[in-house]
């Protein structure tokens, strides 16, 4: 049943969201159906709750986190549910008439039901985490409701402010709840309520209390974060009537009541909660006097009343709790009706500014009467419900024990509360309904549609009924609710209107008198209409938020400005730090000597070393003249290749050499489209800094390499590979065997990378509009002699390529090297004969070559999967041919063939794309041509 009740608003919200073109009336009916049906369910459950039963429902949600979908309907929940649904139903009725035909009513009711569901869920929740879930849902849905008129700046700002503050509180609450869960070991409300002593005794208690209260205070608009509530008045009035009088702002005090058994009962609780409540009460009431906006008065008054409730809950005596619950109900009724009345006034006159209103008593007598009664209830005038709870409050304030100073403070606060309450109520009534008629409002002000008044009337009647016959009307409900909080400890209390003449009654009377006097004095002395009170809270909030955004922007712009140089600098620095840290940390420790025999250094090796070092430094020295840098770097590549040869790595040397050749070609191709040299560095400081960083990096790398090489090797794996290479992988060139067999999967990835590189280049250049940096004048040169020679070479290189491919498994070579050996000569053809000439003769779809190569490699590797062996398991077969003898066939060769094709295809694709860019005419003109006479022979560039 509880599930059904909870589901109703959500389901109907969904229905509303889906229904596209429903008429407004149907939408309203559907929306109203939710609270009405839910009320019916609630009514059905009421006898059980009244009897002290707690109907429950439990569904697992996330047991690991202790989050369960558990619902429980105890007295407190019952009271709130009734309030949420009852006032909800009235608000729906009211809103139907309030919203104009051009408003998006469907969306409004959808949000409203969403909120109603969230609120209902919160009060029904039997699991604290679930409470948090619904708690935040109320924040979100109230955000949507406040911002319903989102074309208005104040609506957007109000919504954001409300969400920011309440969501922050929600996060704090989450923290508090999780801590409670840690202490109690469960989030189930029953367990938590039973574990009050454990919680209070735990060292985390102050934290728990602080976090939970942060949630409570933000939600219930307590000082000093109360300021969001007045700004939330930008919402349509039904929203204010619902959220800001009866429900959402009560969520905070609800939770305080809910957790009262677990958290209350310590001095800390008492002092913090009652002080905050008292301050809020005063601040709210005082500010309410100076508002000009009808809803502003109501909002500050709400703050003040919420402060009262909080204060009562802070006092923590059973009687105070009862008073708090009682006041929650009372406040909901009179405030909701007042909001609705304010909405009607706004609706009819077009303004809510009391300075422009007045005399409405004559124009809309019925509404005025209702509103005046509700105002009197707000002021705590006898025979209305507000009076009763206020009396109870006074009594409690006077009965505080053990905290003498608090008793005084709170009693004074209570008296001031009464005084201010009377004052602002008076102002509200007088400025709106009495006095001269409305100024500067549109004409034809009249009573609203009848059904718009019905909800107000119902609420006001309730106020009066409760005020006159409390025991008879509200008694059972209050008793039920009180038992929900206090359990067995519900005190004896009397809900009589007349308790005889006692101090509280005198205080009330004094309050009324002082209130009237205060109003008169203020009105005379200060001219209330002229006082303009800025909300300090808003200003502070605004400043803070803006400061936050500014801080964010400043930080982000200084730190993460998108500069690549900075990224790379950080990377280098962090790498240096990571490399150096362990050595620095181990600096002082004694080091065991390492038995290390260096390889002898022949003089020839020094030649290589010189070649390497000099060309590296040469590249560095010449980097600004790019052509020269590329040239000198060629020496570097050669040196590395020769080093590999010298150190027994022929395969590597071959690969490095070929890659080097192609890289040089690529760089020169690219250089054609890039500036010829780099401009000088901006600052000397930067050069020095980078130099120092580079020096550190270089030294670090050298040190790491040295340290590594002087350690004894651990090469059991290498030994095993070496031993198993021939017998099990049928290859003598161990490096190639590793590439196509032991670690063939690496190679598969590697050729994929290579193939993708081709595709990327193709994709980037296919539609590119590029202009060379400078063009040489004149037509392309013809090079007949080299062309002839190159043409002669091509078939021979093809032969070598095939040779290298076939022999690769047993001698230096293999698919990769062979593929490049084929591609490089073709590059020469491009260079010497020109791209057009080659491509017309040698039309080759390089992209498909890549695809085909990948497929071949894939199928070569996957063949073994047919035999239920893993991918890339190599097979070996000696093909006996009659004339030719034995031909060894290895499945790895198929794989290598794929490599061959991909490498060839991709290299050629890259080269041909870069070589055949067709520049646009316009851009050539833009960058100009080179005058051969101005070229420097030293750099080869035009000077």
């Amino acid at each position: 049943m509880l599930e059904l009740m909870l589901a109703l608003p959500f389901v109907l919200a969904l229905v509303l969201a889906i229904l596209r073109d429903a008429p407004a009336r149907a939408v309203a009916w559907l929306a109203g159906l939710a609270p009405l049906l839910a009320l019916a369910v609630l009514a059905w459950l009421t006898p059980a709750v009244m009897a002290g039963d707690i109907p429950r429902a439990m569904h697992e949600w996330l047991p690991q986190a202790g989050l369960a979908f558990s619902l429980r309907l105890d007295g407190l929940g019952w009271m709130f549910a009734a309030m949420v649904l009852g006032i909800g139903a009235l608000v729906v009725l009211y809103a139907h008439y309030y919203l104009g035909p051009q408003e998006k009513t469907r969306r409004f009711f959808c949000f409203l039901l969403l909120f109603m569901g969230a609120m209902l869920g919160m009060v029904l929740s039997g699991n604290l985490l679930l409470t948090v879930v619904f708690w935040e849902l109320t924040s979100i849905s109230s955000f949507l409701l406040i911002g319903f008129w989102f074309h208005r700046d104040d609506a957007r700002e109000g919504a954001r402010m409300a969400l920011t503050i309440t969501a922050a509180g929600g996060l704090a609450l989450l923290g508090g709840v999780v801590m409670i869960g840690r202490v109690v070991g469960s989030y189930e409300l029953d367990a938590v309520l039973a574990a009050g002593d454990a919680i209070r005794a735990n060292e985390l208690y102050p934290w728990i209390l602080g976090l939970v209260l942060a949630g409570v205070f933000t939600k219930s608009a307590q000082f000093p974060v109360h300021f969001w509530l007045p700004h939330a008045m930008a919402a349509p009035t039904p929203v204010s009537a619902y959220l800001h009088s009866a429900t959402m702002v009560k969520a905070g005090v609800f939770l305080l009541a809910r957790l009262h058994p677990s958290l209350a009962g310590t001095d800390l609780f008492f002092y913090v909660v009652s002080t905050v409540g008292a301050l809020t009460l005063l601040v709210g009431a005082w500010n309410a006097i100076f508002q000009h906006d009808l809803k502003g008065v109501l909002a500050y008054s709400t703050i003040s009343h919420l402060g009262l409730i909080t204060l009562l809950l802070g006092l923590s005596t059973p009687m105070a709790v009862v008073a708090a619950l009682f006041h929650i109900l009372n406040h909901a009724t009179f405030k909701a009706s007042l909001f609705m009345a304010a909405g009607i006034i706004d609706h009819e006159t077009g303004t809510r500014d009391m300075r422009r209103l007045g005399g409405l008593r004559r124009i809309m007598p019925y509404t005025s009467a209702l509103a005046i009664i509700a105002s009197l209830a707000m002021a705590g005038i006898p025979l209305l419900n507000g009076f009763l709870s206020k009396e109870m409050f006074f009594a409690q304030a006077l009965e505080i024990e053990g905290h003498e100073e608090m008793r005084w403070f709170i009693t004074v606060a209570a008296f001031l509360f009464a005084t201010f309450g009377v004052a602002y109520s008076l102002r509200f009534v007088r400025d709106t309904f009495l006095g001269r008629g409305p100024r500067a409002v549109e004409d034809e002000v009249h009573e609203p549609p009848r059904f718009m008044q019905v909800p107000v009337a119902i609420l006001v009647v309730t106020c009066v009924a409760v005020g006159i016959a409390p025991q008879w009307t509200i008694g059972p409900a209050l008793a039920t609710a009180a038992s929900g909080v206090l359990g067995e400890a519900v005190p004896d209390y009397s809900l009589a209107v007349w308790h005889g003449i006692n101090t509280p009654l005198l205080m009330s009377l004094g309050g009324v008198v002082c209130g009237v006097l205060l109003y008169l004095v203020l009105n005379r002395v200060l001219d209330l209409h002229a006082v303009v009170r800025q909300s300090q809270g808003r200003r502070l909030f605004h400043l803070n938020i803006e400061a936050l955004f500014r801080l964010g922007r400043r930080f982000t712009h200084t730190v993460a400005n998108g500069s690549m140089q900075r990224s790379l600098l950080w990377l280098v620095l962090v790498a240096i730090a990571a490399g150096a840290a362990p050595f620095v940390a181990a600096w002082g420790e004694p080091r065991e000597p390492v038995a290390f025999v260096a390889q002898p250094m022949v003089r020839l090796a020094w030649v290589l070393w010189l070649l390497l070092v000099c060309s590296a430094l040469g590249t560095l020295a010449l980097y600004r003249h790019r052509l020269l840098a590329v040239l000198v770097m060629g020496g570097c590549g050669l040196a590395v290749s020769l080093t590999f040869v010298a150190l027994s790595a022929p395969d590597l040397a071959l690969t490095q050499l070929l890659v080097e050749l192609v890289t040089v070609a690529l760089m020169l191709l690219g250089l054609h489209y890039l500036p010829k040299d780099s401009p000088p560095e901006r600052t000397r400081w930067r050069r020095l800094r980078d130099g120092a960083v580079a020096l550190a990096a270089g030294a670090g790398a050298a040190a790491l390499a040295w340290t590594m090489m002087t350690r004894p090797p651990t090469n059991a794996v290498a030994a095993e590979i070496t031993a198993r290479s021939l017998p099990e992988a049928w290859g003598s060139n161990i490096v190639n065997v590793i590439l196509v067999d032991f670690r063939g999967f690496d190679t598969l990835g590697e050729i994929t990378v290579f193939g993708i590189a081709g595709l990327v280049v193709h994709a980037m250049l296919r539609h590119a509009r590029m202009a060379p940096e400078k063009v040489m004048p004149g037509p392309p040169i013809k090079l007949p002699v080299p062309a002839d020679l190159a043409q002669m070479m091509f078939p021979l290189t093809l032969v070598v390529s095939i040779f290298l491919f076939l022999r690769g498994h047993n001698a230096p070579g293999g698919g990769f090297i062979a593929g490049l050996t084929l591609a490089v000569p073709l590059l020469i053809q491009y260079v010497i004969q020109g791209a057009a000439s080659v491509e017309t003769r040698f039309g080759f779809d390089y992209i498909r070559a890549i695809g085909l190569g990948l497929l071949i490699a894939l199928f070569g590797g996957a063949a073994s999967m047919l035999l239920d062996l893993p991918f890339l398991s190599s097979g070996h077969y000696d093909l006996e041919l009659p004339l030719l003898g034995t031909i060894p066939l290895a499945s790895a060769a198929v794989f290598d063939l794929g490599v061959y094709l991909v490498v060839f295809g991709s290299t050629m694709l890259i080269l041909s794309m870069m070589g055949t860019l067709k520049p646009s005419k316009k851009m050539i003109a833009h960058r100009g041509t080179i005058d051969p006479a101005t070229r420097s022979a030293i750099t080869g560039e035009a000077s």
Partner: protein
Amino acid sequence: MNVFWELLLVVLLLVGSFFILMGGIGLVKLSEFFRRLHAPTKASTLGVGCVLVASVGYHLFMDSDPQPRELLIVAFLLITAPISAHLMSKAALSLRMDEWPQLPGKSDEDTHVPPRPDGGDDDGY
């Protein structure tokens, strides 16, 4: 017999090394690009040729890899060296090094390209 071949190999190696060194010295010593161009391209060709022949012989006798494959290297060198030389001189010509005043030891005749005998115009070099 063996001694003779060994001697021959040694001579080949010496000759080869000598010419390679000549190439290097020429490259460093000569004063102007086109002169330098002569030294290494050809001295190296002969030098490397000799070394390669020696290598063939050496492997033939040392029995480590008794095949004359190194000859292919010679073949390739013979094909590629002219291509390189041709292109490098074209590059040098295109930079008009004759108009560059500061080369030491430069004389007019070195870098001055005479007009074509038939007066034909040849911009392209």
